[in-house]
């Protein structure tokens, strides 16, 4: 452990931006960490595979087929990843709109996480496009497929990234020592937050709505006309579980960034979030139950897919929900962490069940992702973590804002 009193970070105090920026480009921290040793080869391999993909076509590295045109990259990277990034809109809602001060200390890191998640998942989306050079068509407006769910999702994605960038921008300004800009940008935060929450509620549900036309392709236990609302509600606890999970890791990895006071607060924050998760999960289970009753699929429960469905609902929603309630009553942080991990597994299961596992469940040849699709997925995640680490080591994300910024207050 590196417990040197002198911190290896500082915010800019008057150096010209450019030379400050150059000096900040240097790596900080140890080079041969376990994470680096694993991630670098994966990222390099991922890049090679991506080159192969653009050279030989999607079929060269994916197992996609005419029957299953969307696989792991959409089902996991995009649909699951965006659910996990939901923490940002939930937390900004709690902190800025409901004015729950307690959670303020983790807003920045959550928003940063959310922003990077979106930036990289959109990147992953580009990899999946067969004709990416036409991606500007629906954006610059020469072809508006306005009755397309995907069109709306794409636009709500893009605008939301912009909103998150605004929400995060004060941290960049503080890092650069741009006082005036920091003041102006923090003045925009509430506006960006309101926009961000609206856009999020629509694209979170929109990801579910994407599959509404697949009525005959998705297993009836997962398909329902309520997919959008189910996706929205589950994004609340998906996002917060990610916040809890990510927080418990950051506390260790970025130990030097976090003040003693924040560390103490963090337990309280996690504890509070466990209650929100528990309630959201309760609402979600109730909805799932209603949908199930409405669908009248009793006879399907006693099939292979039915057991799988029960495992998802009971093992990875009901159990973590009870754990969240329990840990809230008993103030048991270990239980919260376990519950968060179980919840995250449940979300991965749910999103994959809709998009990959339950999609064409009756097909003769099932889609299983190729190892190359998996490597590229990990390469995307690792690259995102690299950028995340780079920013956290430099900007006031986990640590306190510089004194001048705190004084001008916002």
């Amino acid at each position: 452990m590196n417990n040197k009193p002198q911190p290896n970070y500082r915010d800019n105090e008057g150096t010209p931006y450019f030379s400050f920026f150059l000096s900040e480009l240097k790596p900080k921290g140890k080079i041969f960490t376990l994470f680096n040793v694993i991630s670098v080869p994966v990222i390099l391999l991922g890049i090679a595979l991506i080159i192969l993909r653009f050279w030989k076509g999607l079929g060269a590295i994916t197992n996609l087929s005419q029957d299953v045109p969307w696989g792991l990259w959409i089902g996991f990277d995009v649909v699951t990843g965006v659910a996990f990034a939901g923490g940002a809109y939930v937390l900004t809602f709690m902190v800025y709109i409901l004015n729950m001060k307690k959670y303020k200390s983790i807003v920045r890191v959550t928003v940063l996480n959310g922003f990077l998640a979106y930036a990289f998942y959109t990147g992953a989306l580009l990899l999946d496009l067969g004709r990416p050079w036409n991606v500007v068509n629906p954006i610059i407006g020469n072809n508006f497929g306005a009755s397309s769910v995907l069109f709306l999702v794409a636009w709500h994605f893009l605008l939301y990234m912009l909103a998150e960038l605004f929400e995060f921008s004060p941290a960049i300004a503080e890092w650069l020592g741009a006082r005036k800009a920091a003041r102006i940008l923090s003045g925009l935060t509430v506006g960006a937050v309101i926009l961000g929450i609206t856009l999020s509620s629509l694209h979170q549900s929109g990801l579910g709505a994407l599959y509404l036309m697949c009525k005959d392709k998705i297993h009836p236990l997962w398909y329902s006309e309520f997919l959008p609302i189910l996706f929205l509600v589950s994004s609340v606890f998906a996002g917060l579980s990610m916040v809890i999970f990510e927080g418990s890791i950051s506390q260790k990895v970025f130990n030097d960034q976090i003040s003693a006071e924040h560390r103490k607060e963090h337990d309280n924050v996690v504890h509070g979030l466990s209650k929100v998760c528990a309630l959201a999960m309760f609402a979600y289970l109730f909805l799932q139950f209603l949908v199930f009753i409405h669908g009248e699929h009793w006879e399907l429960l006693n099939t292979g897919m039915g057991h799988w469905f029960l495992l998802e609902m009971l093992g990875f929603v009901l159990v973590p929900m009870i754990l969240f309630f329990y840990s809230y009553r008993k103030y048991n942080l270990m239980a919260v962490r376990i519950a968060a991990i179980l919840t995250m597994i449940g979300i991965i299961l749910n999103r994959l069940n809709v998009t990959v596992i339950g999609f064409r469940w009756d097909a003769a040849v099932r889609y299983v992702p190729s190892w190359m699709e998996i490597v590229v997925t990990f390469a995307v995640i690792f690259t995102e973590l690299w950028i995340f680490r780079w920013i956290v080591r430099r900007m006031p994300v986990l640590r306190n804002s510089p004194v001048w910024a705190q004084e001008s207050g916002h």
Partner: protein
Amino acid sequence: MGFDRRDFFKTMCVAGITLAAGKSFGEATSGKEPVEFQGMLYDSTRCLGCRACERVCAKAHNLPEPQDELKAGVLRKTSETQRSVINNFITSKGEVFARKSCMHCNEPACTAACLTEAMYKTKEGPVIWRGEKCMGCRYCMVSCPFDVPKFEFHSNNPKIQKCDLCYDRIKEGKLPACAEACPGDALTFGTRRELIAEARKRIFENPKDYVNQIYGEEVAGGTGLLYLAPAPFSELGFNPKLQTSSYPALTKGFLYSVPSVDVLLPPLLLAIYEATKTNQKDEDNE
């Protein structure tokens, strides 16, 4: 129940719809046909299984000539190199040929899905794909209930392949290549209305030769391709689960609610923000 909900959305969101960018969502699915849609009738009882249509289809669209053999009971599928196929099904009425290609739906799921309008329902009826707009997202494939669009997974400039009813030929006043080539007169090109009348007539005149159903008249909200057959369609490779109402209608509730949420949620959030802000000032004063 579904319909009540949709009506509810409709009334609730009138304000929202008027704000929606571009064309109204109702337009494509109103069921009115501004120009009469053209389509094609395939009469399975007249089909010889000679596959002349397959060969001219390949030629007309620069695709390789199909080499695989047609065997009774072995299902062949359309693919990125084959826009239409003939199959020989073993049914309760003996061996029956059936053709498969794009249905040219009245309210196509693929065009509703496409975010670039690359998949496009022409006013004449054929559903065409326009490469200069397509971004290759494959959402059309995910959405089409008949699994028609095919994607060239092994190309770095991939196209979506599907039957376009020879749109270019139709515009020149010619017949689709397949209809022109068919020696048994199994493929008839015409307006959808005429074709339905013709199909009814055939069923009426020879009730023993046909099941009493025109496939395509109702399925998925009606399609431009219509089928007559001697055996139930579920035995001819047609998915019996498909709904009769249109597929894009499934997303309407969501699409309608988007503009209203976009418009109504921000003021609500602002109001809560203001409310909690004053609260906090009161606390500070105390």
